[in-house]
């Protein structure tokens, strides 16, 4: 992307943000007392859910297909993405990178797997499997209370140059992650979390922006993901609800084969 287009993109995203803020201003507000007491985390989460379309709208859907793009701006790598999700906890993400090929990972409710032309087929195990299951919750956007040991607003800070509330979420397994909620418009705009992978424990930083309406829900059209000095940009182009064929979540042949006992045993 040229610098001009980069600026244009930022300008467009600012406009979209302003539009989104204006649209939501009437429907969404948080009362912050004069002494700047921090709002409860649950209030911030609920405000975000309301801002993206409301709990009922989220719960009204049972599956979703997202298409978009993925890019690594610094080094010119780009590709397409396609993601499927269905209740209660099925997920499939495919990334097709130019010069690399298709990498996919999925969870069918029981088995978490990945397949890439760099590593071959792989089954998630242990903590990685537990985290995949947790992440696959179709209604995870709601941050349901029973899924966390605690949710706490820890400070008012700045995230991506905007005043934001920082929320700490502690899972029942003790793992922690942090989320950022925009003070002005209520959107969840950032996350900091770790994931256990075969390669070890990895810190991930995620920034969501350009919330746009896809159907009856708003989604961040742009998500930046920072992992070990590398930034990726995920862009949503289309979102389709409730038309996902359950067959897409079936395990690939290579994964089914991996799960079979070795010959002779």
């Amino acid at each position, binding site marked *: 992307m040229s610098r001009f287009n980069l600026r244009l993109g930022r300008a467009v995203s600012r406009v979209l943000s302003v539009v989104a803020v204006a649209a939501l201003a009437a429907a969404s507000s948080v009362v912050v007392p004069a002494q700047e007491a921090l709002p409860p985390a649950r209030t911030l989460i609920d405000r975000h859910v309301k801002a993206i379309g409301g709990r009922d709208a989220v719960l009204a859907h049972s599956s979703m297909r997202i298409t978009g793009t993925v890019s690594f701006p610094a080094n010119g790598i780009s590709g397409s993405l396609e993601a499927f999700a269905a209740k209660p906890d099925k997920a499939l993400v495919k990334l097709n990178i130019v010069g*690399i090929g298709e990498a996919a990972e999925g969870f069918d409710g029981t088995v978490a797997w990945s397949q890439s032309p*760099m*590593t071959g087929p792989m089954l998630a195990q242990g903590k990685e499997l537990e985290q*995949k299951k947790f*992440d696959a919750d179709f209604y995870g956007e709601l941050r349901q209370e029973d899924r966390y040991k605690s949710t706490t607003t820890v400070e008012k800070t700045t995230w991506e140059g905007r005043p934001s509330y920082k929320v700490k979420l502690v899972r029942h397994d003790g793992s922690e992650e942090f989320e950022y909620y925009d003070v002005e418009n209520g959107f969840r705009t950032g996350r900091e979390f770790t994931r256990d992978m075969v390669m070890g424990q990895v810190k991930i930083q995620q920034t969501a922006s350009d919330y746009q309406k896809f159907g009856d829900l708003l989604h961040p059209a742009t998500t930046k993901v920072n992992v*070990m000095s*590398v930034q990726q940009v995920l862009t949503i182009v289309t979102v389709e609800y409730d038309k996902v064929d359950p067959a897409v979540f079936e395990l690939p042949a290579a994964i089914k*084969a991996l799960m079979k006992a070795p010959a002779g045993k």
Partner: protein
Amino acid sequence: MTRLAGAAAALALGLNAFALAHLDFTRGAVSASPRTQAPQAVETFDAAWTIVRDTHFDKTFNGVDWNAVRAELRPRAAAARTTSELRAVLRGMLALLGQSHFTILPATADAGQDIPSGTGEPGFDVRLTGEGLLVTSVEPGGPAAQLGVKPGWRVAAIGGTATGDLVRTLPPETDERVRRLEVWRAAQVRLRGLAGTGVMVAFEDAADKRIELTLVRRAASGQPVTVGSLPTMFVRVDARRRQTPSGAVAGVIAFNVWMAAVDAQVQQAMDDLRGADGIVLDLRGNPGGLAFMLTGISGHFLGERVLLGVMKTRDSELKFVSNPRLVNARGERVPHYRGPVAILVDGLSGSASECFAGGMQSIKRARLFGETTMGQALPALFDRLPNGDVLIHAYGDFVTADGTRLEGRGVVPDEPAVPRRRDLLDGRDPALEAALAWIDRATSGRNGVSGWRQP
């Protein structure tokens, strides 16, 4: 977006570990970028300096005062009148680090550069040895083969430049491994060019008779692969069966770069060679690529997840763990390969090849033959700079499972085997022969992998 972010993160980790020595960057300018602009000297200098400051795995910058470097060189960058002058400043800055994987890939040809760009090749490879610059392999049916060029011939001149001049341009104190690498690069730069164009090469044949030939470069062979801002690379995988001295069967798999396109072909080769008494992986001349691929390739030879090495960045570690490949190309469950594994390396085996060979050696799953590797084993990233050039910069260090750091040291073969001119003229390959003989010893000369016990 949590699901997306998680999946994307996993992919990013794979792409993070890009470990490719700059051998193939001899091919010329990087892919054109719409960002290519006027010199933007200061902006480009600042970007390169800042990227290194923020991502170098060693906060001491290998003992270099990085702020002082900026203070000294920024004015020179600002004074650069041309892109070539700016690049000289940038390269000088990166050279101060004294480490591999810090370089600039130009988006346009340097001023005064009389080297033709292009990916055409004359169909033979060379190595600098104590006996001169020797032809080490000739592609069957290629331009050189058609004109009768043989392995073992000595290259006296390329395109009017005497081989001795290529050697003499290097400072006398140059490390021998670096000298061999740089002379190879200089030779390749001159041998390659636009397909269909000719290059005059002066050889000395087996009888030391001078033979001057004009070789018409043919299009690069292999599958073209372009990843991001890097130059297009051509992936070649070759798999064949060879008999050991005792008549056992060994599978020999060679590939020239660690790109994703290699994986399916190696998978197919392993499926075909699963019953072989031994496997030889030939990584000679392989400069690296996607280092994370070594987790998948090693999985053909390991039945469990085994740590091969660790990439250490400034604030985190990435483990390179084998992923057992227990499914064949047809999607059927298969056992991993349990027989002996030999790896062939030489001074042009770099980066990801070193991480793989060193990792397999460190867990005693492979025996190495050939020559000490390049010693340029730092995982790197590549970033486009404001002027359109690409900065390659190491952001991690790599140590094998047994704690051996490979940067500057290289991987030392268990059985050194250096090709001599006489061997090449006689059609012999000492490293491969040593590997095949070892497979015989390892399997007690019996056919069938049951004769092999993994250490």
